[in-house]
């Protein structure tokens, strides 16, 4: 189903090529990953869905002032879209079901955001190419740069022992966490860096799983990297400080844990490159501890 939608979206993109030399098309993006892709390509969208969430979770590339907010990703404001009359709307394939009315009235491209084959980075490159075609830009230099960047990062973590790495985010109550499996972008980055993913349990289509924090006990070997999302993470950590269980985790005792700035887990190549650089910068130091 998703595959076919993606294919149709792709064909639609081929059928309506952007006329060369014309002004940049006025595009509206309804998904954070698509907003990121546009900004990565240097295209400023006219309007995006859930603008505050982009600034909070993705942030980089920076969303310029003056971009218009369209409301929630599940229910972007149709009247506002009508008033803005964008040349084209970019939406994620998961939104297609709820946006039947959008696609019948605007030229809309539904693009695959999640990887059907489980290779999130290859999917991110495909997505960037599709968005480049729709916006009349060139994705290849950026893909090449990101690939080199990730390869460089891989070099700097090469030669470390093969301890697995767990990528996760602590929930505010400090009892639950979101862990990132092989299927999503963070898992894809780990794989490209030649690192073993400590999470081998179940995961959803986006490569995310929710787990109780006691699951950390089942991965005593792992290096732990968690994403710092600000206030929630601070509250979680203040609760964990007094937990014997947390203090007793081998990773904590041996200094094998690090927090890093939040990365949007469904993000594209820009997010992937940033995550790779962050890991490359921190992991060798973690490895010195054990």
């Amino acid at each position, binding site marked *: 189903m998703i595959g076919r939608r993606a294919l149709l979206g792709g064909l639609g993109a081929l059928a309506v090529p952007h006329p060369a030399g014309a002004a940049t098309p006025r595009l509206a993006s309804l998904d954070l990953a698509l907003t990121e892709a546009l900004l990565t390509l240097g295209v400023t969208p006219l309007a995006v869905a859930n603008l505050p969430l982009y600034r909070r979770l993705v942030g980089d590339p920076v969303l310029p002032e003056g971009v218009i907010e369209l409301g929630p990703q599940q229910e972007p404001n149709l009247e506002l879209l009508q008033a803005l009359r964008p040349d084209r709307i970019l939406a994620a394939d998961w939104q297609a079901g709820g946006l039947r009315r959008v696609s019948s009235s605007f030229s809309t491209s539904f693009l695959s955001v999640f990887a059907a084959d489980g290779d999130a980075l290859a999917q991110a490159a495909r997505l960037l190419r599709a968005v480049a075609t729709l916006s009349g830009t060139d994705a290849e230099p950026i893909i090449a740069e990101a690939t080199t960047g990730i390869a460089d990062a891989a070099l700097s973590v090469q030669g470390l022992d093969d301890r697995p790495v767990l990528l996760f985010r602590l929930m505010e109550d400090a009892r639950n966490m979101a862990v990132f499996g092989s299927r999503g972008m963070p898992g894809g980055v780990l794989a490209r860096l030649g690192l073993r993913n400590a999470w081998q349990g179940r995961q959803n289509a986006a490569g995310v799983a929710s787990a109780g924090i006691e699951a950390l006990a089942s991965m005593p070997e792992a290096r732990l990297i968690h994403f710092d999302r600000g206030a929630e993470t601070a509250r979680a950590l203040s609760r964990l400080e007094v*937990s014997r*269980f947390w203090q007793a985790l081998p990773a904590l005792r041996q200094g094998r844990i690090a927090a890093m700035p939040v990365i949007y887990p469904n993000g594209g190549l820009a997010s992937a490159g940033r995550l790779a650089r962050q890991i490359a910068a921190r992991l060798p130091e973690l490895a010195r501890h054990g």
Partner: protein
Amino acid sequence: MASRFFVLLFVSLVGAGALFARGALPLLGGDELKEILFFHAALPRLCMALLAGAALGLAGLLFQQVLRNPLAEPGTLGIFAGARLALGLATLGAPGLLEWGQGSIALAGAGGAVGLVLLLAARRGFAPLPVILAGLALGLALEALNKALLLLHYEALSDLALSQAGGLGQISFLPVFSIAPWIAALAAAAFLLRRPLALLTLEDDGARSLGLPLPAVRLAGLAIATGLAATVAATLGGIAGIGLAAPALARAGGLRRFPALMAGSALLGAGLLALTDQALLALAGPGLPAGTLTTLLTAPLLLWLLRRMKGGGGRASIPASRATHPAGPLLLGLALALTAVLALALTLGPTATGGWSFELTDMLEWRGPRVLAALSAGAMLAVAGLVIQRLTGNPMASPELLGLSAGAGLALLLAGLLGLAPGRGAMIALAAAGALAVLALMLRLQRRAGPTGMLLAGLALTGLLGAAGGLLLLTGDPRLLPLLGWLAGSTYAVTAAEAWTAFALAAILLPLSGLAVRWLSILPLGVPTGTALGLPWTRLRPLLLGLAALLTGAATLLVGPLSFVGLMAPHLCRMIGLRGTAAPLAGAALSGALVMTLADWLGRSLAFPWQLPAGLVATLLGSAYLLGWMLRR
């Protein structure tokens, strides 16, 4: 004697203990980390369940004693919803307060909810059923607010929602240690007050003749119970049902004296919650919070308790305008008002720059289907409400309060769970069948539990649907995501074809309801009278039931299960002085359409470019109306 109580207590505690031993004991004798996992995760989890269960069991008993009401407990008094709203508002508005302690924030919310419920029930002399009715209604209103906040601030509040889901997982003994002294102190206070509290079951005169300062004792009891519930709510979130089940089982188990009941309710509460949590842990893993299951079980429990209660609570009456106005001008006025709101909803909307824009035709494509769907659903719900109020002779009956909408929703949910993907027509039939089943059940129940008992049962069913929805949200099954949007009552995805179908259905069903008008006019006189008048009651009744169910099913599909329009619209008509039969019917349809269209427009405009579902806005308007009406009575 009390031997049955000890059997119950033994079974729950030993069951919980056995499951705990099976799951957690193997951790001992493992490596050091496994041992820490035992002592700092598994053991505190068990202790937390026992402690919270005891607190809730005792709180339930105290509420029941003070209010002389076997249905009172934190969940039926709106306490959990109130605490959660306070925590949510603090998270959004003053996160600094959270660092300072969730306990006092939750206590403020819980105390506010209890105070409001009592204020609402004061006019009826705190009669048992009206208190619970006010509590459940307030709970629904507060939950609607919580849902609206979560929709608008999902990223800021989703972590809180997860931690407030009633899960018992622990990573240290600290939370147990931090709430244990509070719970112990409150329990000790209750123990010291056991004699005056025990005397509250006497009639007021009897207690007063013993020299008891009744209001002071009541207030103290309420404060202790609220404190106990708020302490649990702050740490774990909503765990409804334990406070209802533990005292009921203690009584059914043979305990009679109040001090024994206090101890028994606390012990059974501890056993029940621990058993629930350990069983869930063994069967479903650590993902499912115990609170969702106990909340889910509250509805059948309430129904069971209702069967054991005598009816009563009396009948409510709708305030009616003294003067009887001629219907023509009133209906014309309503029609004009509806036209004005329609014009507003179709043409006026906010713009990106913060201003307002007036568009005659440009936005019709987007606003048209939503307005048409809201209008049709509002009219259908209102007429369904009128039919049901006449059918039951109960002015508080409505598709929402009797659980008809919840029945429709549960039928759809069941179909979704079974993996069926019914078409639009089949969905309407399915929703109507669910509504019909509930309506038949309610009419049976009315004979046994009285009119107010029937309302309680309906609200319990509505709560069941809400809990089921919450559970689905946690499991995250993608097949059911469209149903979750529907539960919130959004008209966003309604297509023009669907809207016109709804309109056509309304256009057919409303005149049919008009044909039923003559029968309706005889119904308030009561069934026997109607039969004596030669009315072929046995044949008409199924027809009326089917009509009400179909109206409810079709409308519920568009605007969700909780709008209260079916309650409000008939009342509005009576209040402005519409009498007779045809005029209230037309008036209800017009005002129902008016309210729902207005709700849709407000939902689209208030948070622009974000949107609140029409059903949710109508719920907020409707529950404010319901609470206000209770307050005035």
